[in-house]
């Protein structure tokens, strides 16, 4: 499963390069628009080690960001699952946070939280949490009648139990979405670094962009992709284990 993900990523990356190089040669674009293969290889060798450590830095923040996001999404999803005034209010609030482009509220975040680790983490989590939230809300607001009936009519239904039942019945969906959201945590962290940090691959990408160095960006994309494939694969394995552990004995 894991190594399949990795070599599939290789195929995709190579396909991407192929498209770029085709465009380059078809339109006869110069090396400064799209770098040549040699240039790319050269850049790759030069920045490889440094970028690897940047990506490691980024992924560690992403992991924390994802944990926070999942937590936030579950809290908000559980609160917002009800069709009550309060539930809908929470939902409107949660949706609004997402609607604002992060760059627009970044100044406000910096004002309120300073420019430390906290702001960065918050930005990463804000980008990542929403898709999980959508799924959590959609799952949490749909009753599983055949199971819930008993608890409801006997007055045993507590919100914890309701959440547990719906989560369990949709375990596959939840694990798919949560492991899929790794991607968003990574993207979120990179954006946060891009805006605010002075470390991580997002920061390196900003510099490369600033220097208009597409070869460096392609290298960064390669490293991000491969790291993510591994992380994603590991999460899927973890999700599989959770399902196995919870669902059967």
């Amino acid at each position, binding site marked *: 499963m894991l190594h399949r993900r990795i070599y599939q990523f290789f195929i995709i990356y190579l396909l991407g390069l192929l498209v770029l190089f085709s465009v380059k040669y078809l339109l006869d674009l110069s090396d400064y628009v799209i770098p040549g293969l040699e240039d790319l290889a050269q850049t790759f060798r030069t920045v490889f080690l440094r970028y690897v450590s940047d990506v490691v830095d980024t992924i560690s923040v992403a992991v924390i960001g994802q944990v926070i996001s999942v937590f936030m999404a579950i809290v908000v999803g559980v609160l917002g699952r009800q069709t009550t005034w309060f539930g809908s209010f929470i939902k409107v609030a949660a949706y609004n946070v997402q609607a604002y482009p992060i760059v627009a509220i970044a100044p406000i975040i910096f004002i309120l939280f300073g420019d430390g680790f906290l702001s960065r983490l918050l930005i990463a989590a804000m980008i990542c949490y929403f898709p999980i939230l959508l799924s959590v809300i959609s799952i949490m607001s749909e009753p599983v009648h055949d*199971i819930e009936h*008993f608890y409801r009519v006997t007055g045993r239904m507590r919100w914890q139990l309701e959440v547990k039942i719906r989560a*369990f019945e949709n375990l596959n969906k939840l694990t798919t979405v949560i492991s899929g959201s790794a991607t968003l945590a990574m993207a979120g962290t990179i954006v946060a670094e891009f805006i605010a940090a002075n470390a991580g691959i997002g920061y390196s990408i900003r510099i490369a962009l600033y220097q208009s160095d597409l070869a460096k960006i392609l290298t960064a994309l390669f490293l991000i992709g491969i790291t993510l494939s591994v992380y994603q694969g590991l999460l899927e394995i973890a999700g599989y284990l959770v399902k196995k552990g919870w669902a059967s004995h």
Partner: protein
Amino acid sequence: MFLECQNINFRYPNGSMDVFHDLSFQMKTPGFHALFGPSGVGKTSLARIIVGDFNDYSGVVRSEGMQNLLYSYNLERLPDWSSVGKHLEKITPPSLRDRKNELIASFDMAETMRLRFSQLSLGQQNRVNLIRYLLQDFHLLIMDESLANVDERTREKIILGIKDMFPDTYFLYISHNVIEVSKFCREILVFRNSLKAPQVITVNGQDHKLGQTVSKDKLEQTMLEIMHAS
């Protein structure tokens, strides 16, 4: 303690025909009663009207002295995250521990307690679901085909066990088995289609109890009465 329905009229919001037209009946004594009638006649609908699941009917449903009316049906499931034994433990009040073990034994379910719900056969699922309702505090329990997928011998044992353990409680047993209904139930509400009046006719059953013998003749007479009623 009694249950009464007066002139119930009901039609599903998107249905084209009345399910009930001026349906009335009374049930004044506790015991094991039945709802009987052809498939699609409205047994499930009436059950849900009684427990208050629907409220767009006209007429009066009165239940005096009954606070807890429970409705159980055969498609219910237990969560699969722990064994059915653990689930039963969890929903059993401490005072009913012994009752729980009694029920498990009487339902022939001792061996399946360590399994999860999804690992049970259909009839086992039916039984474990019914057990948990019997461990609740109730004055009336409606069993909508709750034992439909259990074999006859076990079913008999279960019904006799329930009657023995809960002599003063109301049960409404929904089943398609005439013999069973005639043999074990006290009053049998026989449903006819909504164009006939009255829509239900009450037939007295044999109300067979543990340790008694049943008169074959009387049983056949009850069955005949039911046949005629419907």
